[in-house]
């Protein structure tokens, strides 16, 4: 790929990116969220056509405008989950829309199953081609995707965070499979945030930052610290700085978690949060942060361990019982889980507190309006008309609505899962201010973020999650730099 430029309207997301993908090599692609990784891959995949630049496959220039073009060029994608039909069998999925037919012209499932079995045999994995995909675990979905791509004679496989939902031994299996694919001359583009995996599996790395290539080298020549520095870059340190806050020395413990485990991901988490404290949770994708947040907020029941609030053990069966105990969760995906997008800003803001705006049996429109105005002003939501759908607001303002909505329920503990993703820097600082203000009133905040600068700016303490465990606890003063924290998260630092 040479000089790839991709613009969305006036915004250049990719600025002249070069990338050479060599047959039989694993090429890692790294960079922060928004650096352009996924756009680059969507270009390869035919979802977005390029604005300028050239793509050559085996020396031949190719035009990729549709997914079919990408397929013809031999580029295969291994998605996390979106390209399989859960209700169909493995073999049916692999040959979907390219069904194996018998002489009579009818679909021949047995031949497809045989062909699928041969592909799996070649990969050294055992999967029943007749099994319905929905009955298989995530690790198998991925293998089915790989088999699907290989059945189309892909010479380049793009894997996007392939280990995000895998258990440890499954990851090792995947790496062995990748080695096997390499030896067959297949090139792999490996997108990941995890340094240990990149160093284990990749031969070469390209790091993107702000749509530009900032590092392209063989992996052997690099240390983890060098890669991390390339990813992070030299930041303008002005906007996101830690403000020393007066923490009450002997504030009571609000929430205590002991040895909490749940499901496949969450193994054992122990931590405490005091009133007035902001505790940051750091860790890689899949390290159990979101799962822990779900347990605290009553969405999932823990399979082990105890949660106590004010020293009294609690068991939440539902989010409502958690809310009654004063816990509010601001979920990761605001569009799906945080907002009713088609409803107005006012409706969204007042949804959890409808009981408070009644007069008699009915909702009081006057009280609704007052409350809306008060919240919009207090949280400085930039909205022309609070009665217009919330979907018309910018991402940052939508997130403010979510934050305002939950803080207004007067929780004592606010759990925030990636509260600033897709939010511009200006709004980000405003949200961080809201969080600080909220905590200074004696409330506690559990702040989950993959963006280390903001984590360092807002958290009084940081707990690093690794593989479903609360692995390290760091005082704000213990962390000298973002690089150091990144190394700890990656498990590379002593």
């Amino acid at each position, binding site marked *: 790929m040479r000089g790839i430029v991709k613009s969305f309207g006036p915004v250049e997301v990719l600025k002249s990116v070069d990338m050479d993908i060599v047959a039989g090599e694993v090429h890692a692609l790294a960079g922060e969220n928004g650096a352009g990784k996924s756009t680059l891959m969507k270009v390869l995949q035919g979802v977005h056509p390029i604005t300028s630049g050239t793509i050559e496959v085996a020396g031949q220039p190719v035009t990729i405008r549709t*997914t*079919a073009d990408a*397929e013809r060029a031999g580029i295969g994608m291994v998605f996390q989950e*979106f*390209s*399989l*039909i*859960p*209700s*169909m*069998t493995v073999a*049916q999925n692999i040959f*979907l*829309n390219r*069904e194996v*037919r018998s002489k009579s012209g*009818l*679909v021949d499932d047995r031949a497809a199953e045989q062909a699928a079995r041969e592909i799996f045999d070649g990969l050294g994995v055992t999967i*029943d081609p*007749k*099994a*319905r995909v929905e*009955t*298989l675990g995530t690790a198998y979905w991925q293998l089915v995707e790989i088999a699907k791509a290989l059945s189309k004679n892909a010479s380049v496989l793009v894997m996007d965070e392939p280990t995000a939902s895998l258990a440890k031994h499954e990851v090792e299996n995947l790496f062995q499979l990748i080695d096997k694919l390499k030896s067959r001359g297949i090139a792999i583009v490996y997108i990941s945030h995890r340094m240990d995996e990149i160093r284990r599996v990749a031969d070469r790395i390209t790091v993107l930052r702000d749509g530009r290539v900032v590092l392209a080298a063989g992996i052997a020549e690099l240390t983890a610290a060098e890669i991390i520095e390339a990813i992070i870059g030299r930041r303008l340190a002005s906007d996101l700085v830690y403000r020393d806050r007066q923490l009450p020395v002997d504030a009571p413990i609000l929430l205590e978690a002991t040895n909490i485990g749940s499901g496949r991901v969450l193994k054992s988490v122990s931590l405490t949060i005091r009133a007035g404290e902001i505790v940051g949770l750091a860790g890689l994708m899949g390290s159990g942060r979101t799962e822990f947040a779900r347990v605290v907020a009553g969405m999932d029941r823990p399979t082990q361990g105890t949660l106590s609030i004010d020293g009294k053990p609690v068991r939440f069966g539902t989010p409502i019982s958690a809310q009654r105990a004063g816990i509010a969760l601001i979920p990761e995906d605001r569009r799906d889980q945080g907002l009713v997008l088609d409803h107005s800003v006012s409706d969204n803001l007042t949804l959890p507190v409808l009981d408070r705006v009644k007069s008699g049996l009915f909702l009081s429109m006057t009280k609704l309006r007052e409350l809306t105005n008060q919240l919009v002003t207090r949280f400085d939501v930039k909205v022309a008309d609070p009665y217009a759908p919330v979907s018309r607001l910018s991402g940052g303002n939508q997130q403010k609505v979510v934050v305002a909505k939950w803080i207004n329920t007067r929780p004592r503990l606010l759990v925030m899962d990636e509260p600033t993703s897709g939010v511009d820097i200006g709004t980000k600082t405003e949200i961080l201010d809201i969080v600080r203000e909220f905590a200074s009133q004696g409330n506690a905040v559990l702040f989950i973020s993959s963006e280390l600068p903001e984590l360092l700016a807002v958290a009084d303490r940081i707990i690093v999650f690794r593989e479903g465990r609360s692995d390290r606890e760091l005082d704000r003063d213990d962390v000298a730099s973002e690089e150091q924290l990144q190394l700890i998260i990656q498990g590379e630092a002593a």
Partner: protein
Amino acid sequence: MSSPATATRPSLITQAVTRFDWRSNVIYIAFVVVFILFAIFLGSDGFLSANNMLNIVRQTATISIMAVAMTFVIATAEIDLSVGSIAGLASVVTAMATTQWGLVPGILAGLLSGAAIGAINGGLVALLKVPSFLVTLGMLGLAAGLAQWITASAPQPIGNTLYVQIFGGGDFGPIPGLLVWTVVAVAIGWVAMNRTSFGRRVLATGGNPTAAAYTGIRTARIKFTVLLLSGIAAAIAGMLYAGRLESGRFQWGQGDELTVIAAVILGGTSLFGGRGAIIGTLVGSLFMGLINNGLILAGLDVAQQSVVRGAIIIAAVALSRKK
């Protein structure tokens, strides 16, 4: 009909039993249980006679044919509420055209009326992205009104004996013609669903539209096609009503859409798309006929039948519901 896909040790019978997918197969169990109950309590009323059995098949033929096509519609996660009205419309169109122009133009006119309405349903859903629930709900009223209008509410007698012979009135030796129609419809439906690329595309479109589109399936076209086919199948059902009852009436088929949808869902096809069980649909349809027949034999009046039928449908659907 899904077999336990990943049973590793088949020797363990208990494991096979616990893994057996009760919910998708509940219709077969329900069918057998209800059949046995009726045989015990209504055997003396002639329930088990060959003639009564054939009657059940005759009475459910139109439902079965519409339900086979509906299985495809529901497997794409769409719905067609207009089938009953299309059947009524096709019955009067065929009757009028046969009287006017003869047998072949009559049959063609009937099919065409169903195809036209099916194409409008499909076009609105596929091109304008109007939810099929709304499109076909409107069409339910539109087609029924049209049928009543063009006939001025009068029944349209069919004098053509060959038409009556072919469409439901006649028998092939001991086999009723309506049984043949049912078997043919189910056979075509089963092959199309399970052994053609079309069937796969239907299931993929309903199972995960995003993934289907990524795989290069034109999901809009699939939706158009299934609604078109549903219209044609409904027209054939209407023509069978006209043949069996030797006249076209706008009332034929009225309310059938609910029986048809119930039969499909009972048969194990998911309302959320991605699953289509043709044999299950047939059994679901026969089950509905079985209940009607048994309740009549038991001497319940129309109002009581309606209550019991409603309760049984709710119970069976609740048991077969997956999520």
